[in-house]
């Protein structure tokens, strides 16, 4: 049952080599220079200025430079201090007491204090705020300001992983000053504590950020979103480049300095041409994960033997290449290879075996019934992988049909558990507990209570070793029951002009523009 | 002295996908100064095409393929396009059948009249305007000043045709081509309009080539008559000759088809309205002999084989019919 992973491993080695080479080039240059404007090409426009109301990842990309949460992630996705300099859990993990950094100011000049933390979390929890991810914070019973620089979180249930909630990237549980909202409770001009100030948003044109000169950075070297966060750039212009071909032209024309998502189809052209024209390409393994869900309550797909047959009919490498060419890593687990929880056990998955697939089909009593794979073209990989899955299933005689839906309709079917197979993709979840929650969308918690109980145990401890063992068990349980088939994590292809120094993207997909300077 | 118009062996053909349509097979006739010549015949016989050929405005895909057209002794076929433009509207003007569609609906009467003057005369707008108003007065259009600012659709059919007449005679042309100018009009105004046209033309010494199939009109105004059939002239003569001594069976047929005309020597009881049997031959496939032969009640030996030339029956009268070979040879 061991997956032959050698090929993709080799590919990954090569790719990391590419990243390291450019990283070395970046560090080799001289000391940072203050000043200049950087134009940054985003895939879409900002959707909302209010981080408490946002659910779009593009908002995180922009707003993480303006607002700050209490704690944040290192490059290796460990929790690090940001607005809170230290903290302490009660033994039952039901109370968290945090000490805030003193002398930290909002962009309006006022010092950030414990009352702002209380106000911000109450706002995140207030149904009137219409926070789409309110459920993330529902375990918070109360937030209390003990003194100007100390706050206490009281939780309903024990939650050792609560710090991940506070470090959440999307939406950012940002600490905002209450004077930044108007009479309607709306934020029109965002005021934060981050290294850059929100200056202007022209819808569909640009978001302008300016350096916050009084910014007080946490100590230590830059490490992911943590450590040194000193801004060097005077201005950042974030421009939406909705059309990927035009985005590449804009980079070649030096109209933008950084392109956040470089289209994979242009990599060959990059190697032949752009690399000689002062453009640098980096490829960072990412943590987004793509899969097909099975409806455990539906005809045909409720049969585990049928799902096993599907698992044996699929070759993850082929599906991965169909969706992302060489720029994704096949991975049968929700835990990405760069995570601390990733172990050999997570490579376990049935390798493609047509004979076995047919054997399981017979066992399942499959008689050529039609099986529908729901997907959408709004996100190309979801569609491409669905097509690959369909053709591989056809090879063992499964009569599968791809049903293309509009994104909101696909979501509706997902939440309604109204699908046999559903092709999907999910953004980075640094804590595997959050990732495994998605099993519930297939109905696996009801059908396989043992998986739910393993997950509850993992949720109840912050002992890394214990959690590692539990996650292995959960993964192996998914191998046995096949509620989903995980395919891959894709890489972030970032391209920028060679005069942009110190730029990097994290594996959770957030680009970091503090610590970046221009060498023109 | 030259005749105003001399058409000599004119041939105008339409080159279509189905073959060559001989709209004007061969036509010759003359119009003298100030003379009113009526060209009669059924529709499709080439009357209107003769008028358009004179202006060299034969529409696509038609083309003048032979013959000459002489205006006051000058061969129009030798004229360049710009020389032709100088002729059109100045020395030769034309009135069309449908005043509803021959005036441009998008411009005022004044605009179109002033334009007609200023194409050919270097005069100021005011001068052109005055000239136009004077002309409108001559054709008895009521309130001519106010009409200048009216659009064609605001005028009745009779008034529109008066405007057309005024425009055609604005520059005292030598020749007026009038293509069934009253056919589309209300019967009650036909006579008035005709009278206005003839009087105005006489005043300016303009000769008229009047195309019509209305023989009642012909009998009233024509000095001479040209009868056409299937692209050819079958008979021509003075009005008197044609009406009293029609020589061609076709002409006789035409005359008999008219209800209210006294038919010369025919004093007997009124005959039932005569209808000519048969069909006009296809212009793409004319018979080798006389084109009228298939319909002719008097056809005999040579008619279906040989084309009759024009036989002179007098100094002004001629007919293209084998019946008159002996007469002509005497």
């Amino acid at each position, binding site marked *: 049952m061991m997956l032959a992973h050698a090929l993709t491993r080799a590919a990954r080695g090569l790719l990391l080599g590419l990243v390291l080479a450019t990283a070395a080039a970046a560090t080799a240059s001289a000391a940072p220079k203050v000043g200049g404007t950087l134009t940054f090409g985003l895939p879409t426009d900002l959707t909302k200025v209010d981080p408490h109301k946002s659910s779009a990842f593009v908002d995180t990309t922009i707003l993480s430079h303006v607002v700050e949460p209490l704690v944040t992630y290192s490059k290796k996705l460990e929790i690090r201090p940001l607005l809170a300099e230290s903290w302490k859990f009660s033994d039952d993990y039901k109370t968290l007491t945090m000490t805030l950094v003193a002398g930290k100011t909002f962009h309006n000049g006022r010092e950030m204090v414990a009352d702002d933390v209380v106000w911000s979390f109450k706002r995140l929890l207030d149904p009137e705020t219409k926070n789409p991810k309110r459920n993330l914070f529902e375990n918070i019973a109360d937030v209390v300001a003990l003194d100007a620089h100390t706050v206490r979180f009281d939780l309903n249930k024990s939650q050792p992983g609560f710090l991940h909630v506070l470090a959440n990237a999307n939406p950012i549980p940002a600490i905002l000053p209450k004077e930044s909202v108007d009479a309607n409770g709306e934020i029109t001009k965002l005021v934060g504590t981050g290294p850059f100030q929100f200056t202007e948003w022209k*819808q569909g044109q640009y978001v302008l950020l300016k350096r916050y000169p009084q910014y007080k950075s946490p100590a230590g070297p830059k490490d992911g979103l943590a450590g040194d966060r000193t801004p060097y750039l005077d201005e950042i212009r974030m421009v939406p480049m909705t059309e990927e071909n035009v985005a590449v032209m804009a980079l070649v024309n030096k109209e933008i300095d950084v392109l956040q998502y470089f289209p994979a189809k242009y990599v060959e052209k990059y190697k032949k041409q752009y690399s000689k024209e002062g453009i640098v390409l980096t490829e960072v393994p990412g943590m987004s994960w793509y899969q097909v869900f099975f409806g455990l309550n539906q005809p045909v797909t409720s049969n585990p033997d049928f799902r096993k047959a599907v698992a044996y009919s699929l070759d993850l490498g082929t599906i991965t290449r169909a969706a992302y060419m060489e720029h994704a890593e096949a991975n049968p687990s929700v835990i990405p290879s760069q995570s601390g929880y990733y172990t050999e056990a997570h490579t376990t998955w049935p390798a493609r075996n047509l004979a076995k697939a047919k054997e399981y089909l017979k066992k399942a009593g499959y008689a050529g019934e039609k099986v529908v794979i729901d997907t959408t073209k709004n996100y190309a990989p979801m569609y491409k992988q669905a097509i690959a899955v369909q053709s591989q299933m056809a090879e063992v005689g499964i009569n599968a049909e791809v049903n293309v839906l509009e994104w909101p309709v696909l979501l509706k079917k997902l939440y309604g558990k109204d699908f046999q197979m559903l092709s999907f993709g999910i953004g980075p979840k640094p804590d595997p507990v959050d990732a495994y929650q998605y099993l519930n969308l297939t109905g696996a918690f009801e059908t396989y209570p043992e998986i739910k109980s393993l997950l509850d145990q993992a949720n109840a401890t912050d002992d890394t070793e214990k959690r590692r063992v539990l996650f292995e068990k959960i993964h192996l349980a998914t191998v046995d029951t096949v509620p989903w088939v995980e395919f891959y994590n894709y890489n972030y292809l970032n391209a920028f002009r060679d005069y942009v120094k110190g730029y990097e993207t994290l594996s959770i997909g957030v680009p970091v523009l503090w610590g970046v300077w221009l060498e023109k | 002295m030259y005749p105003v118009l001399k058409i000599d062996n004119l041939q105008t053909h339409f080159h279509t996908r189905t073959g060559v349509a001989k709209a004007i097979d061969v036509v010759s006739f003359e119009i003298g100064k100030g003379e009113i010549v009526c060209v009669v015949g059924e529709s499709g016989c080439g009357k209107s095409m003769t008028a358009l050929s004179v202006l060299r405005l034969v529409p696509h895909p038609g083309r003048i393929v032979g013959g000459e057209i002489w205006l006051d002794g000058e061969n129009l076929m030798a004229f360049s396009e710009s020389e032709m433009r100088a002729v059109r509207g100045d020395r030769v003007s034309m009135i069309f059948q449908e005043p509803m569609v021959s005036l441009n609906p998008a411009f005022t009467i004044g605009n179109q009249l002033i334009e007609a003057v200023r194409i050919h005369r270097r005069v100021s707008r005011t001068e052109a305007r005055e000239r136009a108003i004077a002309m409108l007065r001559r054709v008895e259009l009521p309130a001519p000043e106010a009409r200048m600012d009216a659009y064609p659709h605001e005028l009745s059919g009779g008034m529109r045709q008066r405007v057309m007449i005024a425009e055609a005679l604005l520059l005292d042309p030598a020749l007026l081509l009038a293509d069934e100018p009253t056919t589309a009009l209300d019967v009650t105004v036909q006579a008035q309009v005709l009278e206005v046209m003839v009087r105005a033309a006489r005043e300016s010494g303009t000769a008229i080539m009047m195309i019509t199939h209305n023989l009642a009109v012909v009998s009233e105004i024509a000095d001479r008559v040209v009868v056409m059939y299937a692209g050819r002239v079958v008979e021509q003569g003075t009005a008197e000759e044609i009406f009293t001594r029609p020589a061609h069976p076709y002409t006789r047929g035409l005359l008999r088809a008219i209800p209210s005309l006294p038919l010369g020597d025919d004093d007997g009881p009124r005959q039932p309205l005569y209808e000519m049997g048969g069909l006009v031959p296809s212009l793409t496939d004319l018979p080798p002999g006389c084109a009228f032969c298939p319909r002719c009640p008097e056809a005999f030996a040579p008619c279906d084989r040989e084309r009759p030339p024009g036989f002179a029956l007098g100094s002004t009268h001629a007919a293209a019919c084998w019946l008159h070979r002996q007469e002509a040879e005497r």
Partner: protein
Amino acid sequence: MLAYLLKRIVLMVPTLLLVALMVFLLVHFIPGDPAIVMVGGDATPEALEQVRRSLGLDQPQPVQFVTWFGHVVTGDLGRSIGTGIPVFETICERFPTTFVLTTLAMLFSVALAVPSGVLAAKFRNTGKDYLFMLVSLLGVSLPGFWLGLMALLVFSVQLGWFPSSGYVPIWQDPIAGLRYMTLPSITLGFFMAAVVARMTRSSMLEVMRLEYVTHARAKGLTEWSVLLKHALKNAFAPTLTTIGIQYGMLLGGAVVTETVFGLPGLGRFVVTAIYSRDYPAVQGCILFIALVYMFVNLAVDVLYKAFDPRVKY
């Protein structure tokens, strides 16, 4: 004339009411709702229900319609669920761009298409005519998306004449603004021109068969005067209607052009709003677009009389 205008404007009110109802029904008829898009693929069914409640989507649809329409009547189009910004503010910010783009494109297309149509008609059924019509066939059938990209590749990347991205409103800086607007309005105008040229050609041919054209020639006018004065003015009236329809349609948003050239127009916003089921945004924008369309129609009808005096109000 004034009475006619007033009458037409008054008649817009019931039309708008109908449009409002239709838009509401259509938008609510398509499956999926804004709450589901807001929470994305990340929520529990309970959380989804909560968001739905907070947006008032749990109310019966007639109630939702009355609430929304009640606000619309007082001039309040509501806030976009997607951006949290009042819909009217977004329209005011984005419509001018679409307006300038479409207007420039229209001017360009008329300047290109009317002469082409006239020439094609003049040289009807000759090589020149076929060439004109082939080009206009290309204009109609080439995808605007591809055309836009090619224009950028040639004039922006190869020649460097125009920027490939970015935007400055023309009313802030006419020179720079025009630089950003040139390629998009030419691309869009080329598409419009194709349709307008075909219309011009066919109505020219129609008109040139009429007797007043022969009459104009018989007056001694040159062929050009006949074409450009007598034929064109008459042929332009139906062309004007075509231009009006296209202009009105594209004012609703030239989505493809706006996307390729990254212009912050209304079209892109509406499409995003439809995809995210942003009910207030879609409803507000479509209502506004319908109103604009009605005014364009009115303008066409008024202008029509200038070319065809036979029209009566």
